[in-house]
Structures are given as structure tokens and as C-alpha cells.
């Protein structure tokens, strides 16, 4: 093994090694340290804030656009009463512009027993719809495209079409072709007239009341026991109403549209099945909401040493915990250390709420927080380089970023600003069962990331305020709680109430300023678009 005496001897000799540097070295050093470089952390913040806002907007849009479609009570009832009924839809119930060209109607037993091949052309200029009276016949116009379970255009002697059949149409023809399997398919070409959404009920006395929508949609001629609806054609031309442009009937096109209608009918049946499932199971979907708050924030300094200042009369106490910010060493000159005063704070974000039961729910969110505190400091002195760019790392060779530091004093007020992005998770409990003014308790944790800061930190040992983003713990864990009351606002669900939040993670990763924790207290509001 080597003898450490050699190393000791070398070490001793090398400590004696000295040279006189040239004058230019000090001149360059002096020039460099007197240069004032200001650094703004806000561009960094905004670089992150923009994507965050886009994320918020995108998330909100996603939540709102993916909310389940509501099923009309009529359709719901219909489905509930006979969920296993074959999917059937009505041709006359389409909302304008919904492009719902295809409607399939399945003829029921009686019709099946009729003449499936019967297909007649409506005579006269007006296409006629013949809907036979049936006691339980109902053709339900379901906005959600659900069908009436007992649909039924029961075969009966042809009845005159309803009155609005003479409405100048839009060259629209519909065909309910009685298929051999008793399936009637309707095809439309184009709809330009507005058809009101109505409930069609074939009343025995009403003849063809189902033609409320547009009588010329259908040219239904019923033979015995069959429903056949096809364009009223005459020599290949649809007989239109007065003033209507003649429409050339193309059998190939009609066939194609007929098959398209069948596909659409199949899709509708699938959707109906989903709707049935949705209605049958208790479902508490995620709800999206906008949240925000405004209040005050401060730094809670839990532990500080009890070294007193030389000039106690002029020292400031820390109002947060009534401890005095102190020095580790005696200070021969007068030094003023400011209290950390609370500053305005606000936040905004989105949240997704999932009801777990009638009273409990959980929520996840994404928020942007702005905290501020105020201190009084002395004059700006010089610049320095963050510690992250120094020892034992190659970052020292990177471009140097400098920040000002300040003496202690009472010369100016300084606002420390912090910008956080936060991911909260919270549980919410509905305290009462009031529908008018429900009360909610809210509590949870959050993880936040410090995106930018303009804060100055006090070094208890060297006695200066300094800016250094490297000394802050960028990732923070917070705990928060709040009490909220639901307010009856038309068209919205609004919750408002007090909220407090405390940072479990110390703000700084150094002991230079003592442990500091962010505290926030303020008013919180949550807005759920739409009524529950």
C-alpha cells in the first residue's frame, strides 16, 4: 500500500504554493460583480401558463361535450315499459336538420299476416298515408331516437292522408316498403320543410293522424294486412302536391337509400340498447365544474431561533407565528428584518366531480394558483448566481444567470409572488339534505408545482434578502379544507364558502431562512354548468 506520508508531504508543499496574479484579473472580477443582471421569472411562468390554460380549456370542453344525452321522458317511459321491443322508429319525428333519413318500422303481427307484397302507388296528386286505426297504436317521436315499443302501423283500409300532406314539400319521398319479413323501411331523399316534433298516435277516429309531420313523406297504401309505403309515382314520377317540383323516381337510388336506412336503423337500435342499459342501472357520472377562489396567503414560519437582534426596538416580529426572524451571529450594526405580511392570492381551475353516493363524492382538479406575500427590504446591493450553478457540477460552465439581492432595511416594500400549478384530490360530504341550501364539507390533498416566483428569501446567516429559484422546493404537498353552501342560481349549481390550505412541504430547501410553509385562506366558489 502506498504511504500516506508522501501525500502529506505533497499536500504540505502545495499549500505553500502562491503566485501573484496580474492586475487584469481583479479588474475583470470587479467589472463582472458590479454588473447588474435582472432576471424575470415571469416569462418562464407564462411559457407554462399558456399550455396549462389550453389544457384547462380542452379538458372543460371534453367534459361538457361528452356528457350523456338526456333521454326524453316519453322515450324513457316507452323503453321502460317494453325494453325488449324491436327497434322501431318513426319517420315523421325527425328534427329538422338532424339528417335522420331512415326509419324502419316493423310491422306487427297483424300486418305480417297481411299481404306483404302489396305495394301500391298512392293515387292522386297527394301522397297519402294510410295508417290504420289501432287501439294501442302509438308512434312515439323520440328525440333520442328511441322507438315506440309497440309501434304499429296496423294494416287497415286505406285512409286519407292527413291535412298537411298538401304542404309543398321538398321533393321528399319516403318509402315504407313492406318486406317479406314484414319490415317496413322508410327512405327519404331530402327534407327542406320543417317538421314539428310531435307525438303521433293513430287514433281510430282520426284516420291517419300520424301524418302530422309531413304527409307527403309517406305514401302508404295498405292492402289487406300490409303496410306499404312508397313514393307515389306515376310513370316514374312522384306525384307532388300543387306547386311542387316533379321528382323523378329512381328505383336504384331508392334501393340504395333503402339499404342505408336499414343501416341507420341498426345503429339506432344499438343506441337504444345503450340508453336502456343506462336507464336501468343507477349511474352517477363525472361532472365537470369551474372552480376559483380569492383570499390572502402568507408564510407560516414554524421554527426560528431565538437569537435576538441587537437593535430590538427596531426589529420586526413575524406576525405569522410571533417569532422573530433572527441572525445566527451577532450583528454589530443596526439590522431591520421585516415581518412577512399576507398578500392577495387567487386561483382558478377546473374540477371533475364523481358522486359516490347521495352524500359523498370525490373530485379531481387542475388549478393555477397565485400567492403573494409582502416584506420590507433595504436597497438592492448586487447580483449573484444561484447555487445550482456552482459546486461540483458542470453547470458552472453554463451561461450565468444573476439575481439581485437586498440589504435588510425598511426602505421599500417588496411583493413576493409565487405561481403554482396544482392537482388537487378531495372528498366532499353533503352535510344536510336540504335542496334549497345544501351544505358541503370539503377536504383533501393536493400536489402543486412552483412554476415561477419573484420572491426574495432572507438568509439568517449573511443577513441579506436574495432571489434564488434554486432554493425553493418546487414540488409542494398541501392539505386543504373548506365549507361550502349551495346557492340556488338559475341554470347553474353554485357552491360558495371559506377555504383554507396549508403547505406541508417547506417552501425552501435550505435552512438559510428557516422552515416556511405557505398558508392560504379565502373564499372558494365552484360552478357546475347545468342543473342536476
Amino acid at each position, binding site marked *: 500500500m502506498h504511504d500516506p506520508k*508522501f501525500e502529506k508531504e*505533497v499536500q504540505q508543499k502545495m499549500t505553500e*504554493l502562491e503566485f501573484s496574479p496580474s492586475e487584469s*484579473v481583479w479588474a475583470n472580477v470587479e467589472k463582472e*460583480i458590479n454588473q447588474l443582471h435582472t432576471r424575470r421569472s415571469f416569462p418562464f411562468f407564462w411559457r407554462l401558463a399558456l399550455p396549462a390554460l389550453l389544457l384547462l380549456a380542452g379538458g372543460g370542453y371534453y367534459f361538457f361535450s361528452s356528457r350523456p344525452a338526456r333521454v326524453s321522458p316519453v322515450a324513457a317511459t316507452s323503453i321502460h315499459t317494453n325494453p325488449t321491443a324491436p327497434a322501431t322508429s318513426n319517420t315523421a319525428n325527425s328534427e329538422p336538420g338532424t339528417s335522420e333519413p331512415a326509419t324502419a318500422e316493423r310491422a306487427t303481427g297483424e300486418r305480417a299476416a297481411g299481404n306483404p307484397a302489396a305495394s301500391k302507388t298512392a293515387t292522386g296528386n297527394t301522397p297519402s298515408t294510410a295508417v290504420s286505426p289501432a287501439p294501442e297504436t302509438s308512434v312515439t317521436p323520440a328525440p333520442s331516437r328511441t322507438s315506440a315499443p309497440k309501434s304499429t302501423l296496423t294494416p287497415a283500409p286505406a285512409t286519407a292522408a292527413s291535412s298537411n300532406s298538401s304542404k309543398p314539400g321538398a321533393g321528399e319521398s319516403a318509402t315504407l316498403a313492406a318486406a317479406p319479413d314484414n319490415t317496413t323501411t322508410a327512405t327519404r331523399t331530402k327534407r327542406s320543410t320543417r317538421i314539428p316534433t310531435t307525438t303521433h298516435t293513430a287514433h281510430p277516429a282520426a284516420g291517419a293522424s300520424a301524418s302530422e309531420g309531413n304527409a307527403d313523406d309517406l305514401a302508404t297504401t295498405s292492402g289487406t294486412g300490409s303496410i306499404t309505403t312508397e313514393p307515389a309515382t306515376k310513370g316514374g314520377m312522384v306525384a307532388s302536391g300543387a306547386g311542387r317540383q316533379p321528382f323523378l323516381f329512381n328505383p336504384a337510388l331508392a334501393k340504395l337509400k333503402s339499404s342505408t336506412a336499414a343501416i341507420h336503423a341498426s345503429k339506432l337500435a344499438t343506441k337504444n340498447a345503450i340508453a336502456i342499459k343506462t336507464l336501468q342501472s343507477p349511474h352517477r357520472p363525472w361532472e365537470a365544474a369551474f372552480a376559483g377562489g380569492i383570499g390572502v396567503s402568507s408564510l407560516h414560519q414554524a421554527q426560528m431561533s431565538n437569537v435576538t437582534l441587537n437593535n430590538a426596538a427596531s426589529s420586526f416580529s413575524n406576525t405569522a407565528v410571533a417569532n422573530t426572524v433572527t441572525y445566527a451571529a451577532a450583528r454589530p450594526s443596526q439590522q431591520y428584518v421585516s415581518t412577512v405580511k399576507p398578500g392577495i392570492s387567487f386561483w382558478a381551475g377546473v374540477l371533475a366531480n364523481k358522486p359516490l353516493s347521495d352524500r359523498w363524492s370525490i373530485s379531481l382538479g387542475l388549478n393555477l394558483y397565485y400567492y403573494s406575500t409582502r416584506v420590507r427590504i433595504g436597497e438592492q446591493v448586487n447580483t*449573484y448566481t444561484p447555487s445550482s450553478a456552482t459546486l461540483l457540477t458542470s453547470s*458552472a460552465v453554463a451561461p450565468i444567470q444573476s439575481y439581485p439581492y437586498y440589504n435588510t432595511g425598511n426602505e421599500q416594500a417588496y411583493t413576493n409572488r409565487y405561481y403554482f400549478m396544482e392537482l388537487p384530490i378531495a372528498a366532499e360530504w353533503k352535510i344536510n339534505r336540504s335542496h334549497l341550501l345544501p351544505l358541503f364539507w370539503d377536504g383533501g390533498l393536493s400536489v402543486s408545482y412552483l412554476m415561477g416566483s419573484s420572491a426574495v428569501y432572507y438568509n439568517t*446567516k*449573511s443577513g*441579506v434578502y436574495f432571489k434564488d429559484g434554486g432554493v425553493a422546493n418546487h414540488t409542494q404537498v398541501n392539505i386543504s379544507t373548506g365549507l361550502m353552501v349551495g346557492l340556488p342560481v338559475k341554470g347553474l349549481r353554485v357552491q360558495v364558502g371559506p377555504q383554507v390550505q396549508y403547505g406541508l412541504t417547506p417552501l425552501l430547501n435550505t435552512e438559510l431562512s428557516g422552515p416556511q410553509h405557505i398558508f392560504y385562506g379565502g373564499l372558494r366558489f365552484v360552478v357546475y354548468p347545468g342543473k342536476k
Partner: protein
Amino acid sequence: MDYHQLVKDCLRGETAAQKQLYEHFAGAMLGVCYRYTKSMVDAEDVLQEGFIMVFRNLHQFSFSGELGGWVRRIMVNTAINYLKKNSRYQTELLFTETVLHPVSDDDPEIALSTKELAEMIRQLPPGYQAIFNLHAVEGYTHVEIGKILGIKEGTSRSQYARARALLISWINKFSAANKNETNYARP
């Protein structure tokens, strides 16, 4: 010297105090920089960069240790970073995995002056030079050297053993040459 007061005066921006601190440590620190580099110009570059770092980080000095040691540490790290940055030293700092070199059992009498020994250390290849300085002079362990230079501990050990053996052989030759009243010639 009251370093405590000197540092506070420096932090208050007093140029006189800053110059006083510089003049107090500049000579010794230039010696440190000199050992790590191959020329006095490079050494002064490192010194300048190092003092800039010292003044810009002076607020972080905690008064718990020696100010001289703190300044020295910054100088050493600045020198290492300078070697990494400077293309003249980069290729020599590419350490390769080698088998452990047998350590010389020689225990030479160092009959050299401080500057002669420093010159001899500077004649070592940059990789050997840095590791020898860090371990033998600064007292860093091989684990620490591995972290500083980004190499394995074993590599640091073997490189140090080679550097030490090489240096001892030069010292022995120098001593023998002196005995024979001949001039020292670099092997």
C-alpha cells in the same frame, strides 16, 4: 482577519472589502488553479471565474466553516469545470477503464522545492493531474472524485495509482540527477 465582518461588508457591496478579500486569497488560489492547468494564462482564467463565483455566492456562506476552505473549494470546482469545458483538456480527461495499476511502494524523499514539485505535477497528463490533485492535495476520496469527474471509483483509483507511480519515478530520477549534479530532464 475578521472574515465575518469582511463578508458582510462584501455583501453590502463595499468594493474595498471585496478587493481586500480578493487580495487576501488571490495568491494562494492562483497556486491552486496553477496546479490544475497547463499554463499561467489558463490559471488566471480559472482564478477570475472562480472569484466571480465566490462573490456571487457569498450570501450562501454560512460562517460555519473556514472562509479560505470555502473559497478553495469553489476554485477547485471552477478549475475542474474549466478543464471539462476547455477543448485542450477534454480529450485527456476521457478516462478509460483500466486494470488496477500496482501502486509503487517507493517512499521517495521529496527534495524538491514547492514550485519544482508543482511543475512536476503539471507535467502529468491532465487526467492524472486532476485526479492526483484532487486526492493527494485536496483530500477528496475516490468516491467523491468519481462523482466530480463522472467516472467510476475504480477508475479514479487506478488513474491515481498510475499518476503517483509516474510522479515518484520522476522524483527519483530528479533526486538521482541532483546527486550526480546533473540537471533534471523530463523523462
